[in-house]
């Protein structure tokens, strides 16, 4: 399996941005984060002591549809739990995440949006990190398809997902919590258990390992996704702070 690639801060005029390519599912996402920004006045009465997370998903070529609204809500709820909206400068202000699907197969009307969800989540996480928005933890996400014969395919393409019996998108925090569990199609508990185990291995390496082991671990599916996020960030920090790191 070819691993994903990502670049931090490709855009100059936003507070933080990231581009994320996932060869397995074929999606190419460009994300930008602006935070903290002033929101129109009527919104800050809802949660006066917290920041408001706004997510915008723009499909590349098609007009906006219900699918975008659906993933938008999922991403918003998930990121809202991670962003520390009570840190200095953030209460009553907004964190605006804009996700543009700029390449890959487009999801046609009626197709499942779950295939795109991990790429969107990773792109928004990397953009939040590059904007230095305070977060309580990081996460990694994956999508798995279960075929009619019971095989589990990780990161399926749109075509594979269409033929699958069920689709599962899962996200795990860097502390091992299950942050997201969206499933679609017909499946039983045993299948879900297998999917969960496989997803945990994909995201965090060996299940139950300590943090240090996870980032080092290499398994049959290549590098765990959490390690990939960490490496991308470390690379960028190394480049930006070369003057400081070399000095020491």
């Amino acid at each position, binding site marked *: 399996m070819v691993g994903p690639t990502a670049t931090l801060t490709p855009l100059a005029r936003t507070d933080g941005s990231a581009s994320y390519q996932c060869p397995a599912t074929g999606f190419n996402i460009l994300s930008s984060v602006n935070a903290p920004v002033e929101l129109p006045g009527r919104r800050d009465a809802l949660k006066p002591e917290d920041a408001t997370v706004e997510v915008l998903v723009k499909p590349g070529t098609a007009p906006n549809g219900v699918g975008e609204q659906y993933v938008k809500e999922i991403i918003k709820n998930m990121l809202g739990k991670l962003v520390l909206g009570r840190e200095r400068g953030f209460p009553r202000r907004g964190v605006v995440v804009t996700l543009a699907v700029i390449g890959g197969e487009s999801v046609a009307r009626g197709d499942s949006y779950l295939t795109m969800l991990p790429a969107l989540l990773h792109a928004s996480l990397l953009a939040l*990190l590059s904007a*230095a928005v305070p*977060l309580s933890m990081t996460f990694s996400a994956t999508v798995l398809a279960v075929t009619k014969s019971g095989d589990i395919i990780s990161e399926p393409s749109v075509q594979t997902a269409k033929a699958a019996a069920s689709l599962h998108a899962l996200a795990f925090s860097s502390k091992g919590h299950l942050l997201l569990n969206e499933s679609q199609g017909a499946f039983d508990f045993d299948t879900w258990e297998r999917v969960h185990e496989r997803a945990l291995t994909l995201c965090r390496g060996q299940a139950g390992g300590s943090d240090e082991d996870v980032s080092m671990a290499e398994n049959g599916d290549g590098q765990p996704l959490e390690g990939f996020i960490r490496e991308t960030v470390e690379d960028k*920090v190394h*480049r930006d*702070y070369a*003057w*400081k790191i070399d*000095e*020491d």
Partner: protein
Amino acid sequence: MTTPLILLPGDDVPSDYLPSNSSAPLRLGPGLRLLSEQVPTSSGSSGSHVITATQAGLVSTDTKKNGVSIASFPNRRYIPTTNDLVIAQVHHSSADFFHCMITPQAPHVLLPQLAFEGATKKTRPMLRGGDLVYARVLSVGVGAGAEVELTCVNPATGKAEPGGLGPLTGGMVFDISTGMAARLIRASSSKGDDEDGVEGLVVLDELGKKLESVGGFEIAVGRNGKVWVDSSNGGDSSVKATVAIGRCLTTIDEHELNTTDQRKLVTRILREMRVE
């Protein structure tokens, strides 16, 4: 100092990276927070504390102040903080205030017309739209939508402290990243005779040596990612020298050059512009 440590949000800072000076309390800088951790023991649970990162970046410690913070990505938007030195551009003036821009996307900030050294109702500086002011952030207000106020004097003494605050005449402003601006300010405030320069910057020393013949130059760095350069003593080559200095600073910022490359760049740009 041990190997550089890069943390992601949610990671704990290992205790051997914290400054060991125990006489002063530990100061947590941006990007870190203190969490209490419930450790189950035989007699119920005892609380202990861990320091956790909230931003991704490099752990940097300050042994003098006994502080630890996370140095995050340097290209962030400028958010006004009290006591920051900024370069503001006057947009328009009203009866008592100059309305200034410190970043193009933020609302205007206020600079009282009497907040200059020696200014009275009769002798206040007449600034027009587009003029530049080197000022200190006096207050940022509370909560969202609050007004940011600037000042060019220390309200306690009535002097322009630190020196140089006030209108900037002549010269030219260049945009740099906020991270680079912070580096330049730190480098100039801690003068070292280090061969490698302070904060990995040798560009200003190098330019100072090379441009002595054309009368030197003046520089003002604003935390809002602006740097003002002027070398009006240079006569014919003053414009060239100003542009050359600006080009050096912006190129170093963009390409993250090390000290050797900084020296090379200064020589190359000065030769290209035929300043020397």
